[in-house]
């Protein structure tokens, strides 16, 4: 009985979510219109028409090599993202609970954020050569601070009253963390994770392009060398599509499951 109602509830939420895609489509259509206007003003050589770009992207996908390159870049971005999510969360939570660690890590963070990602790519290229490791390390260094700060914020801004409540009812430190704090930390952590995932893809492509390590970045470099604007735009569209697919398959469902109560709190008609 409760299983059935839980399934129905999820189906209803999925339906609402799919229905809300119309708003997203409207936004995309607006971008398409601007793009088309730019194409008509500047011509094919500067800005290929959106439909031609889509056709080029479809052709790339059909030729077969594009799927390989997409998979390679996505795997690299996900590996880097996974590493930075793990390390950032672990260290962020630890620093949130230990003020001394937080004070120590603040200047390190400022330093890391101050170094441009491109410098890390150069260093990683020298250290590891044009390999997966170069891309992963660059992502790790450039995206971890965001996750770290998100985790720290989650720990620091948690409601300590709930900790006291759990303690009164007999929860030890571990179960206080698992049952009460982890949920509050995740609320701050998820926006940071989404941001980190986006920058993981961007940094992966940039590192591939500069390190000549293949993948979408490599294909972009070739398109630039040939001044093939349609192919370059097609690769960009494919990369964006891959990022969106990963975000909506990997992160959004988990977040929706954890934040069901927020939707319940929203007044009727303002459900997003």
């Amino acid at each position, binding site marked *: 009985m409760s299983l059935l109602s839980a399934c129905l509830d999820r189906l209803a939420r999925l339906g609402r979510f799919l229905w809300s895609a119309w708003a997203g489509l409207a936004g995309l259509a607006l971008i398409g219109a601007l793009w088309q206007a730019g194409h008509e003003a500047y011509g094919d050589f500067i800005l290929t028409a959106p439909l031609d770009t889509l056709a080029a992207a479809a052709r790339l996908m059909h030729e077969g090599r594009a799927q390989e390159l997409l998979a390679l870049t996505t795997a690299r971005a996900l590996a880097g993202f996974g590493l930075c999510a793990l390390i950032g969360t672990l260290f962020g939570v630890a620093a949130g609970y230990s003020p001394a660690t937080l004070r120590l890590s603040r200047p390190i963070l400022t330093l890391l954020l101050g170094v441009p990602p491109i410098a890390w790519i150069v260093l990683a290229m020298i250290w590891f050569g044009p390999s997966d490791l170069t891309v992963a390390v660059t992502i790790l260094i450039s995206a971890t601070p965001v996750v770290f700060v998100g985790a720290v914020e989650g720990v620091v801004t948690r409601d300590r*009253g*709930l900790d*006291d*409540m*759990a*303690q*009164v*009812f*007999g*929860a030890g430190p571990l*179960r206080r963390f698992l*049952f*009460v704090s982890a*949920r509050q930390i995740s609320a701050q952590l998820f926006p940071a994770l989404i941001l980190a995932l986006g920058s993981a893809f961007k940094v992966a492509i940039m590192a591939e392009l500069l390190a000549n390590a293949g993948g979408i970045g490599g294909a972009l470099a070739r398109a630039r060398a040939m001044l093939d604007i349609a192919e370059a735009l097609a690769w960009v569209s494919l990369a964006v599509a891959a990022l969106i697919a990963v975000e909506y398959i990997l992160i959004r469902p988990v977040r929706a499951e*954890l*934040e*069901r*109560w927020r939707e*319940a*709190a929203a007044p009727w008609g303002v459900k997003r």
Partner: protein
Amino acid sequence: MSLLELNRIGHAFFGRTVLEGITLGVARQEIVALVGPSGSGKSTLAHIAAGLVEPREGRIARHYLRHAMVFQEPRLMPWATAAGNIGFPLRLSRAPRRMRRRVIADAALRAGLLPEDLGKYPSELSGGMRQRAAIARALVTDPDFIYFDEPFTALDVALKRRMQDLVIEAAASARFAALFITHDLLEAIRISHRILVLDAGGRGIAGERLPPGSPGTRDEAAIFALRQHYLTADPLFAHIHDIDERLRP
């Protein structure tokens, strides 16, 4: 034998002494109201007795099996439904899942929550309903001692009265003892067997009064008259409404 004994408890926040030499006991099935002016350290004392705050000095002897607490704010977890919040102590005590649902419904009913409210999130409940859920959460493990830390301060007068009746009924049927912190004298008289007055500076218990009768049997006129008598003629309550909010920690 007392269920709870505090012996010469003292505490300080950042070097400023807030409590000193507090000695009190709560007997089996006895409801003790602790009143005192704002900032006299009543809440701190309850938190010390419940083990949330480590006292700087003194001894605490707890002879009860299980305690619960109702806080000034409901302190419900916003991500869990009312049923999830009420069942939280059961989850902590690793009660079997099958049993939980019935026990939760039972505790909710005793606190005046209907079965259809159990699936709602705290943000969908009104202030009074949230505090009812907090009371149900305290009742759900059938504790023999409950701490009430000014639980009804934020509620309006009518709601407050109803909540007090709820606690009186629950105490009579579930037979728990309680330490009830409040600064509302009327509430203390209505709800308790014994009223303790905390010294305005937190230096010991200034004295105690035993309102005639037992909770639930006193009529409203007598309660009101007793309150007037305490406030106008009893020197023990002379400083009860003194407020120095700057002193609050």
